[in-house]
């Protein structure tokens, strides 16, 4: 699909222009928003135009779906950042935001592992810059931690890709699938190579036990940036690529039984679910809690992706979408709280609900959706994932993953109690609700969460079932 190129090129052009507008106050933000809105509409248009066409392997349905999500989240973040980013270097800020969007679009549009790697690096470098944007000591530390772990991951990826090139002579997805299908029966080398790749991508996703960079990076970055990182960057740079690897893995040993490497990845996923949820209980900071919650939710996506049955894949994609909406929303709410009160520490101020009713209400919606409570969107994706696990015979895993959602609910209730509900403490007397610029993205995301939750067939019929059809 040549057309996909525009999703990479236009933001880059925009970034260059933005960089020249560094002294301007409003222009860069406006430009970035226009470009992203435009990209979002085009991606929707392309998706609906190309429904029903036949593609190989389904990546194209997948890329189109991911493109829509990337632009949706990036747009929300850019809109939020226009109001929330307090920097004099607005030109650079939005330029890097556009670069990261271009990088993510590149990741999902590439049809070749090496191209994927190149774009992964673009995203990674842009993320370091954004995390450390304000030159604060803490955020620089977070960025450097991310940088170290990410470079290890990159080394692994490069190593795996070169081995793959040696072994199969090809790095395009199409070529890989062909070779894999030919070498049925001698799967050990492929398993090892893809396993290495998977480990590297788990680092980028921030799965347990490779998670140590996520809480620091999310906590130290400014709120729009944490929203971007948790909402979409780790999903594209980590989970999406992991989903691809899992799909490749699922055709190694195809039809015999579940792949050993796939099973191993599932255990990592389960570990993340439980660890993230347990670690989140102890957090004293809103954003750190959200970071651990992300680790836990990424576990759900990973476990489903590694299972790789059609239902599980649908669940994984659906959960990627849902997590993108509710985690972005929650980080926005954290941003609102930080902006209004100057801190995101839990238990330091109580009863914010009275002063910030809209932030509090949308945050509650985001939290309940994360915990997988109906009628919010998170419930349906979790249902898919749990049902797929049960169906495939992983009953123990499915029960564990299910009951981990009580843990999710538990830490969010703790947060609710320590921050939003509860009788109002004295130190919040002067706190005011944020302006409309901050609230509109929150409302929009909350609306998506509720709408999808009430009528999930909209997402299922339009986005997931075409993908499943191609898979089968």
């Amino acid at each position, binding site marked *: 699909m040549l057309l996909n190129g525009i999703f990479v090129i236009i933001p880059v052009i925009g970034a260059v222009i933005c960089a020249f507008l560094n002294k301007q106050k409003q222009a860069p933000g406006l430009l970035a928003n226009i470009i992203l809105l435009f990209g979002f509409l085009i991606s929707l248009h392309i998706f609906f135009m190309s429904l029903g066409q036949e593609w190989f392997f389904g990546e194209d349905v997948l890329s189109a779906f991911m493109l829509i999500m990337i632009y949706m989240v990036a747009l929300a973040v850019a809109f939020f950042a226009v109001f929330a980013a307090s920097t004099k270097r607005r030109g650079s800020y939005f330029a890097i935001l556009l670069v990261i969007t271009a990088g993510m679009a590149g990741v999902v549009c590439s049809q070749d592992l090496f191209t994927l790697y190149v774009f992964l690096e673009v995203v990674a470098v842009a993320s370091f810059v954004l995390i450390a944007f304000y030159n604060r000591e803490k955020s620089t530390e977070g960025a450097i931690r991310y940088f170290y772990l990410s470079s290890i991951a990159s080394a692994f990826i490069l190593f795996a890709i070169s081995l793959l090139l040696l072994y199969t002579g090809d790095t395009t997805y199409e070529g890989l699938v062909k070779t894999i299908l030919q070498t049925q029966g001698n799967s050990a080398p492929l398993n090892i190579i893809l396993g290495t790749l998977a480990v590297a991508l788990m680092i980028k996703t921030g799965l347990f036990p490779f998670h140590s960079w996520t809480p620091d990076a999310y906590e130290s970055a400014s709120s729009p940036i944490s929203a971007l990182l948790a909402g979409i960057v780790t999903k594209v740079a980590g989970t999406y690529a992991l989903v691809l690897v899992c799909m490749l893995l699922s055709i190694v040993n195809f039809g015999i039984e579940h792949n050993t490497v796939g099973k191993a990845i599932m255990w990592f996923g389960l570990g993340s679910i439980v660890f993230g949820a347990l670690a989140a209980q102890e957090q004293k900071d809103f954003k750190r809690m959200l970071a651990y919650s992300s680790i836990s939710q990424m576990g759900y996506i990973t476990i489903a992706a590694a299972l790789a049955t059609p239902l599980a894949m649908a669940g994984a994609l659906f959960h990627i979408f849902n997590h993108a909406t509710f985690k972005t929303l929650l980080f926005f709410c954290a941003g609102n709280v930080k902006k209004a009160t100057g801190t995101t520490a839990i238990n330091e101020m109580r009863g914010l609900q009275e002063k910030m009713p809209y932030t509090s209400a949308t945050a509650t919606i985001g939290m*309940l959706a994360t915990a997988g409570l*109906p009628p919010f969107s998170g419930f349906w994706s979790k249902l*898919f994932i749990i049902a797929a696990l*049960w169906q495939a015979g992983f009953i123990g895993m499915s029960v564990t993953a*299910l009951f981990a959602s009580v843990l999710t609910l538990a830490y969010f209730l703790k947060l609710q*109690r320590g921050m939003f*509900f509860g009788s109002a403490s004295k130190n919040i007397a002067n706190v005011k609700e944020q302006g409309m610029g901050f609230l509109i993205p929150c409302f929009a995301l909350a609306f998506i969460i509720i709408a999808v939750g009430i009528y*999930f067939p909209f997402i299922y019929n339009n986005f997931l079932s075409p993908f499943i059809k191609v898979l089968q």
Partner: protein
Amino acid sequence: MFDITGLMIFTVLFPFVGALLIPILKHFKLDSGKVALFTAAGTFVSAFLLCYYVSFGLFPVYRIPMPLGMDFHLLGDAMSAFMAAAASFLSFIIMYYSQGYIKESAYKAEFYFAAMLFLGAMMGLVFSANLAWIFVFWEITALCSWRLVGYFRADSDIAKANKTFLITVFGALFLFLALVAIANSNGTIDLTELRGATIPFYATLFIILAAFSKSAIFPFSSWLPDAGVAPSPVTALLHAAVLVKIGVFAFAKIFTFIILDITAAELVMYVAAISSLIAGAAALKETNIKRVIAYSTISQLGFIFFAIAIGGGLGTTAAFLFILMHGVAKGGLFLCAGIIEHKTHTKDITKMGGLAKVMPITALAFGFCALSVMGIPPFGGFFSKFMVFLAAAGEAPTMAIVLFAFAALLTLAYLTRLFHIVFIASPKQNFTKSKHEAPHQMMISVSVLAILSLLLGLFVQWPLGYLSTMFGGAL
């Protein structure tokens, strides 16, 4: 021709619409309480009409197809219509009571919003014939009860609200597991397609566990007494009349379609009996008025589970008659407790006494409701309890019947004790009699429920006749 399907959809949708209108109309200076009252009234009228039409054998069906067998499927059978009418009637009375109880506060709109959302979810749950949607509505009720129990914002109140929420969500996940298991073993989660099917034993167990947690049967019962921190109308709505009946209702509804395993049925009987006895004993020792009544609820819910587990026409009839009678009487008791608390500013019964002189109407209403719960003829509660034992005779194991007979005796004991300490015993402190015991809405509500407890007993042939014709449980 009257559109009966439309009536059913209206019953489900109307409370939701009302709930959404509450925050909007608040901006137009319309009292949230009035909106809620109107909504509840409308819901009750349509549910009652539905109940009437269903008795002619017209069962409305409404279906929105959804992928993976999760069709949004509403089915208005007799059980559902009866439950909807009973629940919405009690909600209406309780909303009327709230007009006097809930003062102007920042959370007033939130209270009525959550209450109406709860009613809507209840209606949805009652009519749903698809396990996935039963689960969805089930969890919405949990969500609303979380906000309703956490109405007061002191730290301990919020903590108890969270506890309630966590336990019920934990229990509900068993229903989730059950639906996944049933989807996997039977290929469908639509109850009408599961008619006459058998499901794996563990799936049955999951459903039972879920029902126990929602209906506060031991070992999941600890949240119910704690949830008494809520305002009295909330306790009445959630913990006496409506929410705790969800578990028993879902259990009854699911197992009218699916065949209940005989071992599972006996298990339910014994666990329910033990739960009734433990709760009855706890009610004897407790000194917090709302906790006594809450334990009494747990104890009475055991009887309903017992009746459903017996099954057959007679058992089901007994169970639903019990749901009605207990909802009316126990709702009345909780509302009276609210008036007492309002007057004495305490929940501790050891500090009360002699209140019969200070608040005679409340005492009378409390007495009527208590007599009904005890099962003294000619009050309504007698007939429901009698029906349960009638259904049990010959069908249930003797041991279970004996245990329940003890539980019934305990009911007599702890309610007499409660009434004595609160109303008759010599007063520990002087309460002065005032002209009004409480705002008139509160007094009218409890009087209505008290009189109804009696009338439902005197004219028991109507509800009993309706239920036994519909369920085929002829006497």
